[in-house]
């Protein structure tokens, strides 16, 4: 589903990793953890094709991403839901419009889409904030909205970068429930987080693996958590 083969990446002449290989099978649930600055966000942005690796090969849903045209990249992104660490909204649109954006850009809207959006918004506890603009929301509210936007097209893969970074424990558990529920529907989940409690909580409910990114390498840290 997601495969990294000897991927190299860095910014400028500062290498972050030089030989990273990873394979996430379809329907799997992975946490990505590691110290701040290790490259978790970078790894997720490689998977969402926002960054191109300087070496190696990335395969998404069976396609070598370096061979995709710009339109194919767009179509691929409609099958991958991304929650960015900094959320990335369009600030002059309402939250409802932002959440619906992936549907808007992928084709004509139908009334079902609005229903779906309203359901998702109440799921993440934002039904009464739908008409607010993103800058008017708290950090946690924005992250919940970003998760709603990431899954509105019912993508095959969900990449979430610290989706619970700014929310309280109860809301963290609710968002985790949502991710687990989506995973049970067969979606592949990759979730970067610092929150070891969240990982422990998840492990009792889903077969999740933990990838630890450190010094440019990944080790499977499942056992000791």
């Amino acid at each position, binding site marked *: 589903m997601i495969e990294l083969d000897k991927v190299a990446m860095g910014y400028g002449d500062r290498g972050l990793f030089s030989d990273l290989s990873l394979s996430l099978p379809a329907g799997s649930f992975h946490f990505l953890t590691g110290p701040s600055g290790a490259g978790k966000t970078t790894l997720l942005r490689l998977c969402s094709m926002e*960054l191109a690796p300087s070496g190696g090969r990335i395969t998404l849903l069976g396609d070598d991403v370096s061979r995709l045209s*710009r339109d194919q990249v*767009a179509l691929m*992104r409609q099958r991958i839901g991304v929650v*960015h660490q900094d959320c990335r*909204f369009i600030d002059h649109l309402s939250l409802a*419009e932002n959440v619906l954006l992936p549907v*808007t*850009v992928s084709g004509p809207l139908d009334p079902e889409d609005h229903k779906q959006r309203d359901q998702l918004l109440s799921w993440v506890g934002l039904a009464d904030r739908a008409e607010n603009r993103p800058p008017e929301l708290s950090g946690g509210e924005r992250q919940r909205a970003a998760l709603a936007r990431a899954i509105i*097209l019912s993508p095959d893969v969900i990449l979430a970068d610290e989706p619970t970074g700014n929310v309280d424990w109860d809301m963290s558990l609710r968002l985790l429930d949502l991710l687990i529920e989506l995973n049970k529907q067969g979606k592949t989940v990759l979730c970067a987080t610092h929150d070891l409690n969240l990982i422990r909580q998840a492990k009792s409910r889903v077969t999740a693996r933990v990838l630890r990114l450190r010094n440019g390498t990944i080790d499977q840290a499942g056992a000791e958590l």
Partner: protein
Amino acid sequence: MKLPAFLAGDAMSNRVVPATGFTAALTVISAAAMAFLAVFTIALAQASSALAARWEAELAGTATVRITAPEEAVEAQTQAVLVALSQTPGIGSARRLDTDEQTRLLAPWFGSDLPLETLRLPVLIEVSEAGEGPDINGLKQRLAAEAPGAVYDTHGRWRAPLIEAASRLRQLGILSLVLIASVTGAIIALAASAALAANAQIVDVLRLVGARDGWITRAFVRRFTLRAFFGALAGTVVAMVFVALIPGGVEAGVLSGLGFRGAEWLWPLVVPVAAGIIAWGATYLAAIRRLRQSA
């Protein structure tokens, strides 16, 4: 995508790109100003074409024979010329101008109370050519032999430079239109680039949620096309009012031609459509260039 659907757009793609900003004003105002200039240029080109056509029509097919000879030979030569003309194929009619007519011709220069009897004026014969016209060289040779004081003048000598000038004027008009169109395109491309740069974050977010380049491009292109069209329409209407208000009149010569008659009034209406098409192309290229820089 069909043109009506493109022009109507959809509510959301309109909302995604914020409407305000100096680029909107820049596009509308420059399209209006350029359309204003374009209409005048078209009027000028139109006038010079009309003028060239009028000179061509008035002067083509006519000629003058002028006979200057010693007093005792004038009458004989005049008769010889008239006979020669009547025998030449391609000559429709030949008519000797009488003294009154000559007086009228000279009046603008010498006043109407000129004592013509005291002057010895050349005899003038007004010739109108028929069909393809006469074999001018053959005719000139015959006249030289039979009436050495006669000169056959086709008016070509002074007609040619006038027509040449009129057609130069028209070429200049067309060149000006091309320049106006290019400058308009460049300004709108710059405005569109600025708008795209100012909205770079929006473009990036759209790409991240899976928008294709075509979708993003359309949102911008549609805006700029409509702005340029309505700006140019306003400029065109104002220019047409000004052209309509130019005082006309036969005596005004070149100036009286500056304007549109009848169906010619449809010509300026091409300007807003052209502005829309230019804006479409310019914005499209600017958007494609900007999008290549986004992920």
